[in-house]
């Protein structure tokens, strides 16, 4: 789960990371009312998950209540323009009104999970305020890393070492170790997979503050933070994620691809393997669908309907290799789902093997369905049927 800037900054505040004074506003009137009460120079920022707000004209300045209302209206009038990461764009539903700061220097600091060392990795470069991938291309030598030994935890020497290693200007040095301490605290306290400050600003009056906040939380750790789970309600899901959630699947268990061969498999690995098999057989995939560990009748029916109602599938290829999933249960699920569904009917190709496969095959045979033996055979038949339909 990715957080919006205002949510991220709320966590920064709780962990002692300095942020500019700000107010989260839902309407242009709220913005005007806030500036009316708090005269000064303010920056109004669209609250969206997409990057590139500045270039898209979604960050504007205001020095009066009226100006605040006007720029807020402009920002909220149109959604964020589409990009590669989000081809549909993103509506602007709220704004952050923030104190402007006089920038002297901009740096970059992040903590993330390093798979190879199995440690939290702190990453610093003196080039902040721009796309970090771009910095990585232009100044790869500017990046300094520290892999934190979790048995030791974070201590100020780590922050000092990083500040020297990354050649941050002297103005940063005194405050930097405490900021990284706050980030490390946040990383574990809230179960964050990424805590990123870009830019980490050194102001002309010598303060070091987080001018932006990018946080990705581990969905598997949200059960420890019921409050943050509520924050999720305001976050936009994309169309596929919404459909998956409605069908009772995990939001990452369903993706559409525009082809004609609908697929369902148990386990992400086999679901990806099924897509590969369809491609290899010369077909185009309609979707990725991992049905997960269990597959009862209701779930199979939901999945079938999800695919036939929301993709151009002309055939539905079910590929089950039972481990924790039991073949007889899946077979019962398929038979019941097909009997009960009111959605359009497409031909089924079923491959069912593994735990309790004999019983599963018997149930399918009784319902007049003949499963295929192998994944390749199933993919081939599915592609043929899709071409014929």
């Amino acid at each position, binding site marked *: 789960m990715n957080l919006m800037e205002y949510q991220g900054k709320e966590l920064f505040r709780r962990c002692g990371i300095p942020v500019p004074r700000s107010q989260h506003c839902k309407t242009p009137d709220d913005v005007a009312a806030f500036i009316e009460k708090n005269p000064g120079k303010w920056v109004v920022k669209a609250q969206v998950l997409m990057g590139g707000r500045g270039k898209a004209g979604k960050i504007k300045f205001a020095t009066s209540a009226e100006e605040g209302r006007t720029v807020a209206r402009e920002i909220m009038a149109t959604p964020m323009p589409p990009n*590669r*990461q989000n081809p549909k764009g993103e509506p602007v539903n709220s704004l952050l009104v923030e104190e402007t700061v006089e920038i002297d220097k901009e740096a970059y600091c992040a903590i993330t*999970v390093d*798979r*190879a060392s*199995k*440690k*939290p990795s702190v990453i610093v470069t003196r080039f902040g305020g721009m796309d970090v*991938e771009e910095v990585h291309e232009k100044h790869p030598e500017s990046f300094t890393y520290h892999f934190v*030994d*979790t*048995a030791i935890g974070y201590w100020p020497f780590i922050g000092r070492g990083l500040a020297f290693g990354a050649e941050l200007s002297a103005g940063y040095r005194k405050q930097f170790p405490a900021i990284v301490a706050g980030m490390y605290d946040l*990383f*574990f306290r809230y*179960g964050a*997979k990424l805590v990123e400050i870009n830019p980490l600003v050194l102001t002309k009056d010598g303060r070091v503050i987080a001018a932006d906040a990018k946080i990705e939380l*581990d969905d*598997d*750790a949200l*059960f*420890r933070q019921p409050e943050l789970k509520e924050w999720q309600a305001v976050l936009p899901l994309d169309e596929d994620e919404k459909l998956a959630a409605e069908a009772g699947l*995990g939001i*990452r*268990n369903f*993706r559409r*691809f525009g082809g004609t061969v609908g697929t369902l*498999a*148990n*386990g*992400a*690995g*086999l*679901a*990806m*393997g099924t*897509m*590969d*098999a369809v*491609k*290899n057989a010369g077909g185009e*995939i309609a979707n*990725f669908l*991992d049905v997960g*560990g269990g597959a009862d009748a209701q779930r199979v029916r939901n999945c079938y309907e999800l695919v036939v109602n929301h993709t151009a599938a002309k055939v539905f290829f079910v590929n089950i*290799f*039972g*481990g*924790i999933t039991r073949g007889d249960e899946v077979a019962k699920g398929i038979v019941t789902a097909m009997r009960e569904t009111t959605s359009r009917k497409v031909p089924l190709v079923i491959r069912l*093997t*593994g*735990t309790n496969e004999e019983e599963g095959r018997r149930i399918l045979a009784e319902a007049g369905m003949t499963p295929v033996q*192998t*994944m*390749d055979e199933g993919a081939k038949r599915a592609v043929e049927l899709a071409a014929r339909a």
Partner: protein
Amino acid sequence: MSIYLDKSSKVFVQGITGTEGSYHTGRMLAYGTNIVGGVTPNKGGQKTTHGLPVFNTVKECVAATGATHQCIFVPPAGAADALFEAYEAGIRFAVCITEGVPVHDMLKVAGATPGMRIIGPNCPGLISPGQSLVGIMPGHVFKEGNVGLISRSGTLTYEVVDGLTRAGLGQSTCVGIGGDPIIGTTFVDCLRAFAKDPKTEALVLCGEIGGSDEEEAAAFIKEHMSDVPIVAFIGGRNAPPGKSLGHAGAIISGSFGTPQSKVAAFQAAGVPIADRPSQIPELLKERMGVKV
């Protein structure tokens, strides 16, 4: 021979009285796994439906049964707790089946359990065919033999093994290492163990998009195992960049983790890559034939 697990391994099941724990304990027993008991707090002193003793703590279980291998079926919030409890009780081998363990719990486990071999989490476990099975794999598709297998996926592993077995290629040990960002045992850890196993003559690696485990495995093979017949498969090669498909680990980011970088790494190590699981037995036979 085999790696990590054999007939003598004394296994206990954490969460043995739960639905999944109880069901899979029955299946493991039927396969021949030497399960000596289980742990469920507040149910100590009882017997499971399989007639196994239940203990309140790992310490009691180990003292009474001499158990050496832990198999975990507890909910995500209790997985790290179960691993630390076992570590304190002297256990140095654990298999964590649980899916959805918070990544920060695994960071803490990884940093504070030196010398402990942990398989998973979010994995199907491991099997030394004909000897022992710890986890949720369907035992009947495996056959005793000389091919070692390492896989990041669960169900895809069964697919690959089914093909090997049908082609007459039995297995020494098959390890499902799991698909999470932080896992206890990597491809390279398994390769090191297989390199010392005299029975394992050939290897199959089933990788996946995302992460850099496969690249590191390829580098290790190039350096230390260039004389061993090895075939690799990479799942999800048709996944579009930037999209996460189910596994947290299967996210393509940067140059590492793309199908292309994994294919290139294996090619540089002289390891052929199967386009589909069904090609693996044939490719492996070719490689083994070359060696003979």
